[in-house]
């Protein structure tokens, strides 16, 4: 009986994640399942994540963008492209990724500050990022001219498979990749 109960909770959570287009936060899961104790919910989430880890599934639940979301497993990418007649997904331009990194690590930040960090005027790039909703305007800076200030959005996290800003590449990771690049060029 207890077993049935457990799997039911897991199933409910699975159904909830499935209907979410945006990552389903633990907070919202708890709100829906208010009558269940926290530990049981946590356990059910763990079990659910576990249930996709074997080779028996084409889809999975991932933890990114501050919540849980269904996606296909990466190894089936080529088949999906066949089905959807898509040759490749559009990537962000290098200017866009660079501006995003600048914003991600220095937020909240103004256009002038982004441009200074990159050494190039970034207004065009910022516009693209706003339209893609990867960044958002969050207010104005209290300084002369009161420029608008920007932050990365939830969608930014999901786009890069990050769960929170704490998951951004660390200084160690960055130094490592810079070193690798240097070695590679030698």
């Amino acid at each position, binding site marked *: 009986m207890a077993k049935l109960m457990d799997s039911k909770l897991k199933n409910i959570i699975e159904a909830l994640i499935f209907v979410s287009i945006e990552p389903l936060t633990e907070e919202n899961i708890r709100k829906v399942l208010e009558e269940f104790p926290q530990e049981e919910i946590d356990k059910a989430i763990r079990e659910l994540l576990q249930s996709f880890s074997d080779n028996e599934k084409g889809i999975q639940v991932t933890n990114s963008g501050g919540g849980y979301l269904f996606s296909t497993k990466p190894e089936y*990418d080529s088949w999906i492209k066949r089905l959807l007649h898509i040759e490749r997904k559009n990537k962000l331009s290098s200017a866009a990724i660079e501006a995003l990194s600048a914003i991600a690590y220095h937020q909240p930040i103004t256009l002038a500050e982004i441009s200074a960090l990159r050494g190039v*005027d970034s207004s065009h790039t910022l516009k693209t990022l706003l339209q893609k909703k990867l960044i958002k305007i969050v207010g104005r800076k209290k300084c002369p001219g009161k420029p608008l200030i920007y932050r990365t959005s939830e969608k930014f996290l999901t786009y890069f498979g990050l769960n929170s800003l704490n998951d951004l590449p660390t200084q160690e990771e960055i130094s490592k990749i810079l070193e690798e690049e240097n070695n590679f060029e030698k």
Partner: protein
Amino acid sequence: MESTDSYKVRLEVFEGPLDLLLYLIKKQKIDIHHIPIATVTKEYLEYLNKKKRININREAEFLFMAALLIYIKSRMLLPREKVINEEDPRQPLVHRLLDYQNIKGASAILRKKEDEEHLKWKRTSQPPLLKGEDLELEEVSLFDLAEAFFSLMKRRESQDFRIIKGKEFSVEEKIKEILTELKKNSFLDFLDYFYQQESLEEALVSFFGLLELIKTKVVVAVQEQLFQAIKVWLTKDYYAWQN
């Protein structure tokens, strides 16, 4: 995808002067903290020279950096009294380069993550179970708010004619309402009455109701003098019409 290719061809692959500078430094395997300014400036200028046509407006940042390099070089060449604690003129540039280098490194990692995420396909629409439900939900930022407003204004500017949707009002109901008002007050101030209407649609429906009443001669609209308030009165016919 960034649409403007022109933006990307700026000095081939370099995202900006810092990018180019970093490349030159890396190429010579120099420690970023001790940039031989003379050499680097020379290389930088040579690079710019090789680019036959520099669009001043678009490549202004590259020229600005050239000017900055020359300035630093000149300051380092000028004999000056040794002052302890005086900042190395290269310092601000070194700081910018280091910051920029970190951004480049993070960008490379994010690019890898983008590649990985692109292999995982997500659904873009709600599953069919939920069809029919009003699920027009969006995350809102200040930008969305401002954009909503200014596009609203634009839409209105370009619309002489527009289709009005929303709550429905019936002409019959409005006729009843007008007659009730008239019986209470014996006359109705035309403009006042329309100001009370909560939406354009409601106002239009009321107007049609009034027209109907005037047509059937149940009420009469009177403007006593030009530019004065139009008043609506019940006519004798009202009582006949009622029966």
